[in-house]
């Protein structure tokens, strides 16, 4: 395959986990919950996905386990920030410390400290009939794992949900002005918990993608800051699902570029290429700057009885 199509193919592959997690953050922030614990949730999702995939040999069960694990971890965050009203940034940080520690412990206890890497099964690509036969794009876009299709369908669904449906508008109101939402009969607390469940599941799936579709092993630090890159994608994409998609494709492109350059230049130290995604994220963010465009009550705790 030539360089251009190889680049597009790996861009799509690398953008998918970031996209899944960025959508998770979008659902969370739309209900006023800034969650910086995405890296932690992803790590736990990656482990849960890997374990189940390894034990059952079924990557789809692995993805489901990742979603479940993500929800489990995010419920801790949800309880503490929604019910106890702990500071969201602080608690997200606590999750970032807690979840990887638990994941590392479970992996170590189950697999021991042996040198041989346990290997799970990778999800097979699912070619879509007819569409896959379109020259050039067919091979790139329609011969991917089902998780890639899922991620892109979620973008469309999210766009429609937040702009065209009543439930979506109610959902958004919780993030913009919870007091007004409450007076209109929306159960703000319940909506925030629902948001946390969606966020946990999506971020967990994003993590599980890494261990069931991308590589077939688990290692500490496998997430490598992708949760934070997803967080920047939400800001960069100005809290709209199409913007988030573009941002994720851009960051995915940097990742793909890095990988391909590494393969092509054996003599140059690989670290120089690995820096590319992080540096480019920074440059992209600083060139375009951040206009405050997010939900207005994002990050603020909600006191139902306060006047």
């Amino acid at each position, binding site marked *: 395959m030539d360089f251009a199509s190889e680049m597009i193919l790996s861009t799509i592959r690398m953008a998918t986990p970031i996209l899944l997690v960025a959508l998770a953050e979008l659902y969370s922030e739309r209900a006023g919950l800034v969650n910086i614990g995405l890296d932690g949730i992803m790590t736990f999702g990656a482990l849960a996905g890997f374990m189940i995939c390894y034990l059952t040999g079924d990557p789809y069960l692995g993805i489901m386990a990742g979603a479940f694990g993500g929800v489990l971890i995010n419920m801790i965050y949800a309880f503490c920030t929604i019910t106890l009203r702990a500071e969201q940034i602080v608690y997200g940080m606590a999750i970032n*410390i807690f979840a990887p520690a638990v994941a590392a412990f479970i992996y170590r*206890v189950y697999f021991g400290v042996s040198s041989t890497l346990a290997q799970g099964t990778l999800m097979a690509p699912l070619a879509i009939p007819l569409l896959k036969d379109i020259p050039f794009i067919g091979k790139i876009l329609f011969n991917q794992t089902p998780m890639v299709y899922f991620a892109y369908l979620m973008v469309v669904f999210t766009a429609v949900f937040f702009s065209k449906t009543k439930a979506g508008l109610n959902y958004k109101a919780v993030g913009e002005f919870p007091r007004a939402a409450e007076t209109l009969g929306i159960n703000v607390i319940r909506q925030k918990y629902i948001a946390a469940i969606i966020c946990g599941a999506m971020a967990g799936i994003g993590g599980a993608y890494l261990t069931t579709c991308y590589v077939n092993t688990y290692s500490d630090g496998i997430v490598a800051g992708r949760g934070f890159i997803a967080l920047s994608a939400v800001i960069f994409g100005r809290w709209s699902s199409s913007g988030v998609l573009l941002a994720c494709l851009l960051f995915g492109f940097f990742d793909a570029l890095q990988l391909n350059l590494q393969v092509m230049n054996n003599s140059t130290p690989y670290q120089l290429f690995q*820096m590319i995604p992080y540096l480019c994220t920074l440059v992209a963010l600083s060139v375009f700057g951040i206009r405050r465009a997010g939900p207005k009550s994002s990050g603020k705790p909600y006191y139902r009885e306060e006047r």
Partner: protein
Amino acid sequence: MKTKSRLLSVVVPFVAVIVAFGIGCIIIAALGSSPAQAIQYLIIGAFGSASNIATTLVKATPLIFTGLCACFAYRCGVFNLGGEGQFVVGACVSVWVGVTWGFTGFAAILTCLLLGALAGGIWGAIPGILKITRGLNEIIVSIMLNYVAILFMGLLYTSLLREGSVPQTPAVPEATQLPRIFSDIRITWGVVIALTVAIVIHYFLFNTSGGFRLRAVGLNRTASRFNGFAVNKYTLASFIVSGGIAGLGGSVELLGTQYRLMSGFGQGFGFDGVAIALIAQLNPLATVFIAYFFAVLRTGATTMQVGTGVPTSVIDIIQAMVIVFAVAGFALVRMPQIRQYISNRASKKEAV
């Protein structure tokens, strides 16, 4: 009222530690070992002999630095999650100076420490500058810079400053290593530097007008701006100082403990620092204490693993649970219903 909130700020972390240990014991028992025996080994490991106590202090030193780094920035209302990157950058500069500049002794030590702190300060200034001028979220910037710094360190030990076939840099010459306080125990002057920094930071924050303004900016930016405080100046300064503390920590760790860079240097110290600062409720002296407690757990964990076969990662979980419970606990006691309950009980006591 003030003494009561003081009391609560000690009680909450204490309860968090006990609950975390309780769950830790259940996990140890579930693994088929005796929790009592494990804790016994843990205590022996951390306090059992003079050399064990020294090891604990050595392990506490870098944590004190990264804890103070997180604490100082957050006092000014900004989140510096880049402690690890700043720590690593400080160490990189120190190893470069120590190995290639060709002079040794006290002058070299001083140069390494100062340039290490400077490098950390510059690395820490980047998120500050981008926040002030471009409005970027400092959390994202500082995290991205962590990865860049760690990869840069990798570049040093795998190619630029590599020594032989093993991916590591050469060790700094013995004359440039931090001297020991007592010749027969491993403790170096690094501990003293860490404690001095903690005391200076504490004095600055609570006893000078600059520290007062910095805390005011952290508590309410808008009010501070209307009071004529240079909010942006304090924000940037807090980033630079905070990065400088972490960079100095990296230097001290390199010159006093590791002597060379290799894979895993400084790993996790940044986030641990944040955890420590949060449990210590941003008090620099309490930060020292909590950092020491974390170090006790770590040294003890190794002995525990050897003695009982319980993996050291149990201790990582206990540590993580302490932060999860402590932060939840602080939020809990701040809830209106709980506050009401506490003050009701207090007034009842007074009535009796």
